């Protein structure tokens, strides 16, 4: 549905499965992959994927925040007045982001400096907000955790794929180590590490996902 990108915080993913955990997981991680299919939360996906290491840490952060916020929102779903649910959700998400940020600062200072403001920006990441709004508000805690894991993993995997190729093509390295024999026939293209490379990489990944998934019957553009 083209329309569901219009309002990213409130957009409803198609076909919420009310049933089993496995269905929920597959739905979140593949069929409705937050990044490649729904195209949510792309800010951070573009910004931190210049190196594989950054991508992995960012993926971990999102999995953590997604699980935590889904769980709490789900537990409180019957006690939250409908009118202030947005504010409540933002407060819950922000709490988990602060936790993760403080953790990074305490134990991985270098990584914290590299990610800069993008850890804080998870608060405005549409995926977390969208899952809290669309899933955790209607479902019991356990299922919400599964959904949080699924969406977090779906996001992290795509992030890792993009980070892998950008670091490989842009610097000829993987996780900071030169790939033996690779640079002898390939000249690293700096562009892949810079901003335009991020857009190209994500555009191509989305295109490939669409091609594998086949044309969406609901999508007529």
């Amino acid at each position, binding site marked *: 549905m083209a329309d569901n990108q219009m309002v990213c915080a409130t957009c409803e993913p198609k076909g919420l499965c009310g049933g089993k955990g496995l269905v929920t997981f597959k739905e979140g991680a593949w069929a409705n992959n937050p990044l490649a299919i729904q195209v949510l939360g792309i800010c951070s996906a573009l910004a931190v994927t210049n190196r594989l290491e950054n991508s992995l840490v960012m993926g971990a952060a999102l999995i953590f925040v997604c699980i935590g916020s889904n769980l709490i929102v789900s537990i409180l779903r019957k006690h939250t007045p409908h009118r202030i649910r947005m504010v409540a959700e933002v407060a819950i998400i922000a709490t988990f*982001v602060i936790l993760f940020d403080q953790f990074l600062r305490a134990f991985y200072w270098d990584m914290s400096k590299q990610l*800069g*403001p993008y850890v804080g920006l998870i608060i*405005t990441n549409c995926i977390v*907000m969208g899952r809290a709004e669309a899933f955790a508000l209607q479902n019991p805690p356990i299922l919400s955790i599964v959904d949080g894991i699924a969406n977090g993993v779906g996001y992290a995997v795509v992030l890792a794929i993009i980070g892998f190729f950008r670091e490989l093509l842009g610097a000829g390295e993987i996780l900071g180590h030169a790939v033996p024999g690779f640079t002898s026939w390939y000249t690293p293209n700096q562009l892949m590490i*810079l901003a335009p490379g991020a857009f190209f990489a994500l*555009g191509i990944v989305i*295109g490939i996902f669409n091609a594998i998934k086949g044309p969406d019957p609901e999508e007529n553009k």
Partner: protein
Amino acid sequence: MSETSVWVIFIAAIFTNNILLTNFLGMCSFIACSGQIKTSLGLGTAVIFVMIMTTIINYAVYYGVLMPLGLVHLQFIVFIAVIAAFVQLVEMIVERFSPKLYFALGIFLPLITVNCAILGASLFMIIRQYSFLQSVGFGLGAGIGWAVAIVLLAGLRQKMRYSHVPQCFQGVAIAMIVTGVLAMAFMGFAGMVSIQ
């Protein structure tokens, strides 16, 4: 770090360090609302206004309240609360005094709360340790830069309706790649001025 003149920061925030094309902030609404030039202009204007106001308020809150009380680690939650409250306030004021403007901007205002460019601008201001005037320059420049980028993309996407795009690339994928080309064009400004 904070020696750079306000003017340099302002120009750099629009061109060389465009908040959208080099820092990737505000992508969600950038992709979603860039179908038409008119819509994107409306959103762009709203973003410029909210961004400059929230950087000023957040500057005051950070250095006036959070720093003296030693509550710096709460900056995220405080900033986002300030932004949400401010957007709500603007919406109410505009609705009361200028219904015309309200209908023009109406649907965009709530969207801005979740626009990461707004929160990003406040966070950059803290990380780069800008003075008050520098923050104002940065907020204004970043807002204008974002608006310029979204209007440009909207223009390109309007033209693109008549071109043949491979089926799997239609929609968001091709918009991404066009944005990449746009970002390359903006890299041409690099070296003119720079802020870090």
